[in-house]
């Protein structure tokens, strides 16, 4: 097979699998939530309720796609697209197995951070262009929350970069051949996990769309497939953060006996299930608690982690040699 055909195959494989998984997660999440809350969940359409996803898709595609007359039309239409584009572009740099992965950038980790920082615009612009007070309040919360948590999301990963000595995600996976980074970088892992939940605006950090206070927050005015894109974008975000945790802290595709892709999927799915479990079990904090927790606890913790890791890396490199 020619390199071009192989490359295209890679691109469409990653695109199709991640979009299918994101749609399928709607069913997975509802079934898992039901399991933990002692109910059945969707179980009528098809075997085990699996066709519920298809039914939802048909419903959402045939709904009227309505743009409020008071909205800023161009921005209103662009906003849901931004989240899909940024998350799908981030998935391009994730090395899934030694053979599968769309692109290898030598600044792959920074590319992921760059795309996740652009993802904020989707929420902010959706809220602004809707010209509704609930949407605007949701967007204001989202902007402050995602901007704050982005800061130490980046800082928490620098420990991994220091140990691996590269921003290249493949080299980071290779550096975990002997020991997964979740052990020497436990603090970094915990901070990244919390920041990742905040970045995807999942419960308990879903203040931008808090139903009990803001109707539906930033996507109050959205309907039909535009709402669907926010919905799928959120699940894609969950897949992305789970895949990044697997890559950065849990050795990526590495593991005994089973083929690499199976290991990668098992690890990623474990974190997706953890995201759902969090939703089933934790209440939403107050907004000032969220901000204070981020700036006063997580930021100093990630800075401390960075300083200690740097000191240890220098001590090993220089102390051992001299």
């Amino acid at each position, binding site marked *: 097979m020619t390199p071009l055909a192989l490359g295209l195959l890679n691109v469409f494989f990653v695109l199709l699998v991640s979009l299918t998984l994101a749609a399928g997660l709607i069913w997975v999440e509802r079934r898992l939530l039901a399991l933990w809350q002692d109910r059945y969940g969707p179980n009528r359409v098809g075997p085990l309720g699996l066709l519920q996803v298809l039914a939802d898709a048909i419903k959402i595609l045939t709904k009227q796609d309505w743009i409020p007359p008071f909205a800023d039309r161009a*921005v209103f239409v662009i906003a849901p697209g931004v989240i899909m584009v940024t998350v799908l572009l981030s998935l391009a740099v994730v090395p899934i197995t030694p053979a599968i992965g769309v692109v290898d950038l030598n600044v792959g980790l920074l590319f992921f951070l*760059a795309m996740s920082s652009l993802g904020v615009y989707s929420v902010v612009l959706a809220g*602004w262009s809707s010209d509704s007070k609930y949407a605007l309040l949701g967007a204001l919360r989202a902007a402050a929350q995602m901007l704050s948590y982005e800061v130490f999301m980046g800082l928490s990963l620098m420990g991994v970069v220091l140990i691996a000595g590269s921003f290249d995600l493949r080299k980071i996976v290779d550096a975990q051949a002997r020991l997964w980074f979740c052990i020497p970088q436990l603090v970094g892992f915990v901070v990244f996990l919390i920041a990742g939940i905040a970045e995807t605006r999942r419960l308990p950090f879903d203040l931008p769309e808090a139903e009990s206070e803001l109707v539906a927050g930033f996507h109050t005015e959205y309907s039909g497939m535009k709402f669907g894109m926010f919905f799928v974008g959120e699940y894609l975000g969950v897949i992305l953060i789970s895949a990044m945790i697997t890559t950065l802290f849990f050795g990526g595709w590495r593991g005994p006996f089973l083929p690499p892709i199976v290991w990668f999927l098992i690890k990623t799915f474990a974190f997706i299930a953890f995201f759902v479990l969090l939703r089933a079990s934790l209440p939403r904090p107050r907004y000032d608690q969220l901000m204070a927790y981020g700036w006063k606890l997580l930021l100093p913790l990630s800075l401390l982690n960075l300083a200690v890791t740097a000191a240890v890396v220098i001590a090993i490199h220089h102390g051992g040699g001299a």
Partner: protein
Amino acid sequence: MNAPFYVAGAIALVSTLLVITRASAVHALLYLIVSLLAIAVIFFQLGAPFIAALEVIIYAGAIMVVFVFVVMLLNLGPRSVDAERAWLSPVGFVGPIVLGAILAAELLYIVSIAPRPGSASSLVSPTAVGASLFGPYYLGVELGSFLLLAGLVGALHLARSTEQAAR
């Protein structure tokens, strides 16, 4: 150079022009973000992927979000758009365009007579950027961090005093 460079350059120029001529503040900011992204693509083309990534993370992803945030807080309505439109009269553009054209002509002249640098631009790795920041440019980094610390202390002071006044 190659086609992607010229395409990114053209997008940067057009979007920057649109930043100046838009009446709505948020639309102007959106074009500014597009312009910054185009410049990031140019950096990537020139063999500086690290600076390209930082351009997106810091400028497009952090500073511009704060700008949009402030504009949203002000909640400028259609009235401010009308006011802005009235200020954007074509007559006001004549002076800046003449002065800008003189500068552009001067720049083109200097570029045309200057010796061309070797086209073999090498790839600048993140490690090389870090080594030069903490090597020859160490003083600059320290001065920059002084400035940021001063800004941080100032912001803290402003936030503190309003909180105490409210009590």
